[in-house]
Structures are given as structure tokens and as C-alpha cells.
């Protein structure tokens, strides 16, 4: 008998009686301003949200906010400040010196300031983690209230095998419970909420 057969047989023998799988409601909230809540929560988790009038502003604001960044990479073609060739790089280890990335978020979750970034919108899966700083560009109209709604609209077949909810920069509190921003991944996260 294989281990799989052995385990499944034991589970079958030992499992409890059948119970119903409940339906989970959406718990949507319309009494909250989603944009404001997203912005406040992003600050709470160590990030920052900035509202922009249009995509055109992205380049200018990056130059303002990050004047000292040497290596900037972007998977958004209109980001002209980018100077790193992501598509020409095959080995992800070569991304290690990137200072700043500018990537597109598919939609955001107002309740917890998480932004869904599927692999389909990334040239490399490791990009949001290996960078020193990160900017996510998000269409302001693409907010949902919470994770229940988020999973309703999340299409895994289109994610290209991987996707991540990002809520704030990388952080840790493993030394005496003191919060330190920038553990292994991005040291800062700015989300541009763009009015389309």
C-alpha cells in the first residue's frame, strides 16, 4: 500500500459525520468611504497612498518622491523614469540591485489596504519582494470592500500561476516586538490611486 492509500484509508475510517458546508456572506459595507479607509489603513500598515488625477502624473510624482533612486524598473510601459530592462533579463537573481519598482495592481481591498498583484502583470514573480522600494499604481475605481469580494473577482486562471496580496511594506517585530519596516523585502510602499 502506498502512503497515499494508507493515509486516505485511515482518514476514511476516522473522519467524523458529515456536516454542511456553510455559505459565507459578503459582509459588504456601504457606510464607509472605501478610498479614505484604504488610505488610512495603508498608513497603519506602514505604507502611503497618494491620489493622482491621471496616469500622466506618475512619472513626475516618482521623481519628486524618489529623487535618489538609481535603478528603477517598471512593468508599466508608460513609466519613462524606468532605466532597467526587465524583459531583457532572464535570471531573477540579476534583479538584486533594483532600488525601486513601479508595478500595476489589479484591484485593491479597502478594509485591509491589500492590493492584488498577479504574476500576469509582472515580468518576474520575485520583483515585488527583491526590490528596495515599491510603487503600485492602482485604478481608484478598482476597490472592493473586503476579502470576500476580493476572491469573487480574483481570476486565478488569468493570474499566470501566482499572485500576491500586498498590504504595506515588508516588516518584522521579531526583536522584542519592536516594529521595523523593511525586513527582507521592500523598505517602503506607495500606492498611487489614479482617477481614470
Amino acid at each position: 500500500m502506498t502512503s497515499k492509500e494508507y493515509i486516505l484509508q485511515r482518514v476514511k475510517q476516522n473522519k467524523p459525520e458529515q456536516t454542511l458546508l456553510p455559505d459565507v456572506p459578503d459582509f459588504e459595507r456601504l457606510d464607509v468611504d472605501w478610498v479614505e479607509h484604504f488610505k488610512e489603513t495603508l498608513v497603519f500598515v506602514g505604507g502611503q497612498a497618494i491620489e493622482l488625477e491621471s496616469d500622466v502624473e506618475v512619472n513626475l510624482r516618482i521623481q519628486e518622491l524618489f529623487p535618489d533612486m538609481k535603478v528603477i524598473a517598471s512593468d508599466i510601459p508608460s513609466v519613462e523614469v524606468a532605466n532597467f530592462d526587465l524583459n531583457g533579463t532572464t535570471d531573477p537573481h540579476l534583479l538584486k540591485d533594483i532600488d525601486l519598482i513601479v508595478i500595476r495592481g489589479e484591484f485593491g481591498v479597502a478594509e485591509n489596504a491589500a492590493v492584488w498583484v498577479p504574476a500576469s502583470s509582472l515580468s518576474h514573480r520575485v520583483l515585488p519582494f527583491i526590490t528596495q522600494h515599491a510603487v503600485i499604481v492602482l485604478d481608484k475605481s478598482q476597490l472592493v470592500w473586503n476579502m470576500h469580494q476580493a476572491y469573487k473577482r480574483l481570476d486565478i486562471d488569468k493570474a499566470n500561476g501566482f499572485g500576491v496580496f500586498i498590504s504595506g511594506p515588508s516588516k518584522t517585530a521579531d526583536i522584542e516586538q519592536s516594529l521595523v519596516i523593511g525586513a527582507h523585502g521592500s523598505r517602503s510602499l506607495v500606492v498611487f490611486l489614479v482617477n481614470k
Partner: protein
Amino acid sequence: MKNDAQYTNHSGKAAAFVQDEARTDWHDGALWFVRYKRDIQIKKVPEWETMRELASQIKANVLANLDKYLIQFEENALKNGVQVHWAKDAREHNEIVLNILKNKGVKKLVKSKSMLTEECHLNPFLIENGIEVVDTDLGERIVQLRDEAPSHIVLPAIHLKKEDVGATFHKYLGSEEGAKDPKYLTEVARGHLREKFLAADAALTGVNFAVAETGGITVCTNEGNADLGAHLAPVHIASMGMEKLIPRQSDLGLFLRLLARNATGQPITSFSSHFFKPNVGQELHFVIVDNGRSEQLGRADFRKSLYCIRCGACMNTCPVYRRSGGHSYGYTVPGPIGSILSPGVDLKKYSSLPFASTLCGSCSDVCPVKIDIHHQLYKWRQIIAQENELPLSKKISMKVTGFLFSHPSLYRFAGKTARTMLPLMPRFLVYNKLNAWGIHREVPVAPKQSFREWYIEQQKKGANKE
């Protein structure tokens, strides 16, 4: 005599922990603060209690259909191009991991947090077999360098002060002597671990949730360490206890809303990564592990312990855990949940753990999937007594108390004697080693009469008035 290598003596180890009073107070306060942060976050969610109930019902359904969901999960994962392995026990899990690494000629492995691999003692096994193993979660790296086990499942180094971490990093990572600034120390670890991530041939991660419907797994971290490992290395192995399954993708909405809020008072972790398919040119392996879980599934009184999503809230709230430290439990998962899981693994070895509780029920109150933890602790105590695994002092005092309680006149006589004699007895007769209750506290002043005597007196007075 019960020997320490074979038996975990919780109260003995706890006594050692509380020797440093200032540190004990800090530990107690730090964990209670995590509980406090949790309370703030959950109060922002009006449907919190409904969510707990739904999560509990989903987990009940998972256990009732675990075989079906396991098969469904494997089928979907295979379709996604993932290689799936099944391990009956820790030994088989470790062999599977080693084989994957050997086949790919792996020399350097980076790991993110996985309590399962702690449970399986994977690290020493791989190191013996010539693999360099580096834990990359900051807390886990700290305890790994110190050759210790994590003392908490979410906060692995909560038993240490920043001075301890500074000394450890100075010794192993060459940081400045006497440094204790958490920001500086984290930066040192960041530099050290970046090198490890970039040099690794394989990455091993844990699994927070595995979804039967999609064959995908979800891994939650704040540091981003799981992803740095998994996306850079050509091989990604994800080890999961088989109870990590949930039926539907949409169920993640519920569990991700519960997990981080209840664990650390965060709305969600910084990164919630969903792995469905291996990256181009990469291998992705899932190792499904039983290691005693199917046996626990068969124990009607204890199977609900398999609902656990490893948030650690029962530890943060437990008055005994907070004042005794995770290492006093001597089991991979400490605290209340560990005390109901461990006797199922080895009743003899962990027989003291279900007694490491006041049965106050706070653990059950904060559990996001409504495990009846304190009821299970109570049930394990009875089994331990039946199996004759109680320590002698408890055995005798239980017998004496049991005898007294079943003989009312004798009980009344003993009470009367104590009330008369206690105030007259010299101090050394009351406060000595035989009276554990008198070691740290003063015995209350004995009342002149018992409740029964008082009650009879009141009844008589009432009758006289009429």
C-alpha cells in the same frame, strides 16, 4: 523517577523561567500587548463572531470530508504541474524532502516559517545529510543561530531580549559588539539573509492554507521571506499538515480576515502569496503530511484540535504561557493548543501539559475557529489519571481529596480541625515544601465557621423571627 529527557516537566521548567522576575514580567506584558492589539482590530469587524462560527463550521466540514478534499487538492495541483508527495510520518516527510534535494543536486536550502518541519525535526536531518539549511524568518534565524527551538509559533524569539539578539548577531554575523537597536539588528540580518536567498539552490516554505478547489496554496508572511526564497531558487518545496485544507477559494476570504487580526492585530499580513503553478523553469513540490493527524481525527473528543490555523492567540492570552515561556512546554507547538495536541502524540511524555492551565477558558474565547481548548485540556487530564500517568504528589492529593469529598461527616470534621488548628500551628508546619500552595502565597485567615454552619445558623434565626 521521571527523567527529563523522556518526560516534559512543565512546572519544573516554568520554575526555572520565572527565576528572572523582570524578564518574566516583560514576557507577560509583551504577549498581553499582542492580545490587546488583537482586541482593537477585531472590534473593527462587526461580523467577527459570525465569522468565527462560519470558520468553525467550514473546518468541521473539512474534517468530515478530508479524504475527498485531499484527493481533489492533489488532482488540481497535478493539473497545475505541481508534484505532490504523501508522507505518513515525520521520517517519510524528511526522506521525501532529502530525495527532492538530492535529485536536483541541492547544497543550500533556505526555509521560511514552517512549524511542521520543526515538528518533523527536518533541519538536523538535512544538516546530517550535508545540506546547508538556513531559516529566513528573522525570529527563526535568531533561534537557529542560538541552537534553540522557537518558543512561540508566530513570535519565535519572544523569549529573548534585544541584548540577547545583539550578542548572538555579534557572535555569528559580526555585528557591532553591544548593539541592541532592533532597527540596526534587523538591517544586519537583512544583509546576511539576502546573500543566502541569492545563493540558495532550493526553498522550502510552510503552507497556511491549501485550497481543494484550485490545488493552490497560500503562504502569509510580513517579511516577504517565503517569496524571496521561493521565486529565486529553481526548486520550491511546500510542506503542509493535511489539516491545512479548505474547500473553496472563496473560503480564503474568511480565513485571511481572521488569521492576522487574531494573531498580531494586523488587518492582514504584508504578503499573502498564492502559488498555483511552478514558475517557468522551476519545480514546485507539495508534501502532504499525516504524522499522527489521522489518529487525532479518530479521537471524537479531541479531533477539533485539527481546526487550528496556527494564529497563536491562545498563547498570547494564556496566563500560564505568558508566565512560563514557550520552552517550558517541551513540544513544538507550546501553549494551550500544544497542550491538547501533544498528549495525542505521546501521552506519557507530555502528561504534565494539560495541567499547565488554570482552565480559565480564555484560549477558547479567542480561538478564531472555536476550538473548545479548555474542555479538551480537562478531558486529557481525566485520561492521564486513568492511564496512571499523574505525578505521585497529584495522585495522592487527588485520592485524599476524593475520599474526603465522598465522606461528608469526615469532610466537616477535617474542615473544623483545620479552622481550629491552622491559626495555632507554628509557621514552619504550614509553610513548607509539602504545601505547594504556601510557597509563593500566604494562606488566607481561616474563618471561624464554615458556610454550612453559617447557613444552619441563619435558617434558625429566620425560623425564630417567624
